[in-house]
């Protein structure tokens, strides 16, 4: 099937509720005190359509709902109200290292993390050499991960994610990883994604980066869309109302 020019992400009246923690943190409390839940709406009535190949930036202050929106798009969580229609394979690089186990070697972790990101074992085997070369950490790749520096872990993590097949990529904040050398490599890889017909949704505070890479920006505040439009227009208003950063 070809979804050219059709929506890959469609959210209709999506709302997401979180209960404040410690309400039923324990069963004994639940029976003694009962449940008094205080809801907090992280997203309120979001309507959103993203077309195939679009590069969309998400901006807004901390706690605006950016991460919640990204989790819904990547299918990690589901909304309490509204409907979500996602087409194609979405991968999220919200936290690169989440799937690693420090007791396992680099290669073992490449397989594990790749499979968590939805790759097949066969697919990883085929790309293993490329992934290892891109990470470029030499003989460490056979060593258990507890011997790695933070930067080396990030290199492996980024390399796995970068060689994964996807239609839509969801990125949160940290785009550039590792030392200068690897930053160049990872940025050029990200640019490669941007130049292909891949859909990208990215939440970041780097407005410069968005101006260079995205056509469209969505500004979130308090769980609502403040403005959704062309990058220059939205960022101009955002800067005007928030002061220059």
């Amino acid at each position: 099937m070809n979804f050219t020019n059709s929506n890959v992400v469609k959210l209709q009246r999506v709302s997401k509720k979180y209960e404040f923690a410690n309400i039923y943190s324990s069963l004994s409390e639940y029976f003694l005190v009962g449940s008094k839940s205080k809801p907090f709406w992280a997203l309120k009535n979001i309507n959103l359509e993203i077309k195939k190949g679009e590069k969309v930036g998400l901006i807004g202050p901390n706690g605006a709902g950016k991460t919640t929106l990204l989790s819904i798009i990547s299918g990690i969580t589901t909304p309490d109200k509204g409907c979500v229609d996602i087409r194609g394979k979405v991968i999220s690089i919200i936290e690169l290292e989440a799937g690693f186990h420090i007791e396992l070697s680099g290669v073992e972790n490449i397989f594990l993390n790749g499979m968590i990101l939805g790759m097949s074992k066969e697919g990883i085997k085929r790309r293993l050499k490329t992934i290892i070369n891109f990470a470029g950490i030499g003989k460490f790749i056979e060593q258990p991960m507890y011997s790695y520096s933070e930067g080396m872990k990030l290199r492996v993590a980024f390399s796995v994610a970068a060689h994964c097949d996807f239609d839509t990529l969801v990125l949160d904040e940290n785009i550039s990883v590792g030392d200068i050398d690897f930053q160049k490599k990872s940025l050029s890889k990200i640019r490669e994604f941007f130049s292909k017909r891949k859909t990208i949704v990215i939440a970041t505070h780097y407005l410069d980066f968005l101006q260079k890479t995205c056509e469209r920006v969505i500004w979130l505040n308090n769980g609502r869309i403040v403005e959704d439009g062309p990058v220059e227009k939205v960022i101009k208003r955002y800067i005007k109302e928030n002061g220059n950063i």
Partner: protein
Amino acid sequence: MNKQYFEFIFAMTEREFKTRYKRAIFGFIWVLINPILQMLIIGIIFSYFIDIPNYFIFLFSGLMPWNFITATMTRGTPSFVSERLLIKKAKFPLEAIPLSVIFSNFIHLGVSVFLFLGVLVVLGGGGNISLVFLFLSLIWLLLLSSGLVFFTSTLHVKFRDINFITQAFLIVLFYATPILYDLSLIPERLWFIFYLNPLTSIVMLFQCSFTGQCRLNPNIVGVNILIGIIVVLCGVIVFRKNKRNLVDWL
């Protein structure tokens, strides 16, 4: 349900299995040392009070499924919470997490069963072994413990004291299961405990497959199976109902 799904469950099991004893010397041997020590100590003490033929074999056959249950419950119940980082950051079939704990423990159990069989055959006690009963009891144990762990691990996400409750429950359960003793040593007015405890028949079936002395009570087996089915259904239903929202509680 496809190949990739099973590959994933397998990879997660491998991860759980590999990481447990990774840095310990003779890692795997620890799996055997504990139950052997347990068997020797309990055996030496209780053989003074309890008169069961081949008491050490009887004990070890009961301790194997019991250790499986405790290990699975202890690691499985808090498993969603301990993997919260992963669950919050990536989308994957959540059941892989408790399943990886269950399966990796089941491999451990399989190895001890296998070695125990070997020892019995070498020592000449192999004539009493019933592999059919052994197979049945392993499957039954796997199903029951899966039901239990899915139930407790899902609830543990919402109620963080579930882990303490299961730990306390396990201490009681050890004495309420005929591992140290035989049903014939217990007055019949207390047998309701064995009817209600779905582990009774599993442990007895294990003992029966190794010692060849089967004292299975059909009534108890029937009620145990019924309770087992209820436990498995509860586990599956509670998990399926909550898995969509599990991540929001972590």
